[in-house]
């Protein structure tokens, strides 16, 4: 009787252990980290308009917005890496924030950030050593937008396919 009870218990424990190991390896296959923020720089609002930062960091404007010299302007950068235990030959899907989800605020004032764009738009395979992902977006500026320093956050999600 003693022998019959012990054997099934041992094998069941082994199955659980194996699953845990597989789970850990899978979770570490992709590593995402933010390496710089998205900076729209300095500008005068005037009659309002938009400021676009391309995913490669080029700034442009529409409407009455006047761009001022801003050395720190640039796209957000993320590093997409993989662990040595996996991640080969897997495409990476990039989920950018949806429109309406991100605002920059300064006290009671705010501006919407929308139309997020990433470069590259998707990653076929993550090379050894990882790859850099640039993210740009469009800032909507109201007429006579109140002066101030505005800030906010947004999140990027990547999935293996």
């Amino acid at each position, binding site marked *: 009787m003693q022998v019959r009870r012990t054997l099934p218990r041992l094998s069941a424990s082994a199955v*659980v252990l194996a699953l845990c190991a597989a789970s850990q390896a899978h979770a570490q296959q992709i590593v*995402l980290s933010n390496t710089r923020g998205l900076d*729209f720089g300095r500008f005068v*609002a005037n009659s309002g308009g938009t400021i676009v930062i391309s995913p490669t960091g080029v700034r442009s404007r529409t409407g009455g917005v006047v761009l001022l*010299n801003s050395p720190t302007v640039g796209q957000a950068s993320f590093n997409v890496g993989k662990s040595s235990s996996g991640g080969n030959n897997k495409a990476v899907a990039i989920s950018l924030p949806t429109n309406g989800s991100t605002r920059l605020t300064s006290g009671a004032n705010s501006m919407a950030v929308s139309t997020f764009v990433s470069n590259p738009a998707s990653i076929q395979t993550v090379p050894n050593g990882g790859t850099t992902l640039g993210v740009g977006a469009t800032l909507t500026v109201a007429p006579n937008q109140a002066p101030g320093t505005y800030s906010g956050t947004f999140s990027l999600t990547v999935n293996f396919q």
Partner: protein
Amino acid sequence: MIKHVRFTKTHLTLAALALAMSAAAGSAIAAVATATSTSTVITPINITKVADLAFGSFAAGSSIGTVTVSTNGTRSKTGGVTLMGGGATAAQFNVTGSGTLTYSISWAGSSTTLTSGSDSMTFTRIADLTGAGATSGDVSSGTLTAGAQSIYVGGVLDVGINQAAGSYTGTVSATVEYN
């Protein structure tokens, strides 16, 4: 009795297995990172005229001369000119904007002569940012202090021999832009 114990153990193990599987499904698929985004809205730069530049009255003589109004409005002369009634003032522009930003000043559209009908006198601008009485020099850029600065403008008029009498006018136009 023994059968009952065996059932309980197996049941517990299956529960642990189910937990392990759900953990694998939840944590393995996605990675998320958060970035900050920033921008700075700057107060528009603005310029307004506070005072006009006036050379006052003077009489031309039998030799050429000049009339100078410094950046604090002090008038002086050379040559055959005779200064008469006062009223000489330097022009003043007030610039407002943001903090300690720097800006450029362009004088496009400013007159190089003052005219009265078909008569004219050559005008040379004098400008500074202090109104300290400069009698020469010009400015092409400035730096705001607490969002403000003034630009002072005087000038030199070249007066001809027996320059025709009249009221001579011209325009000094200053445009400022953030650097």
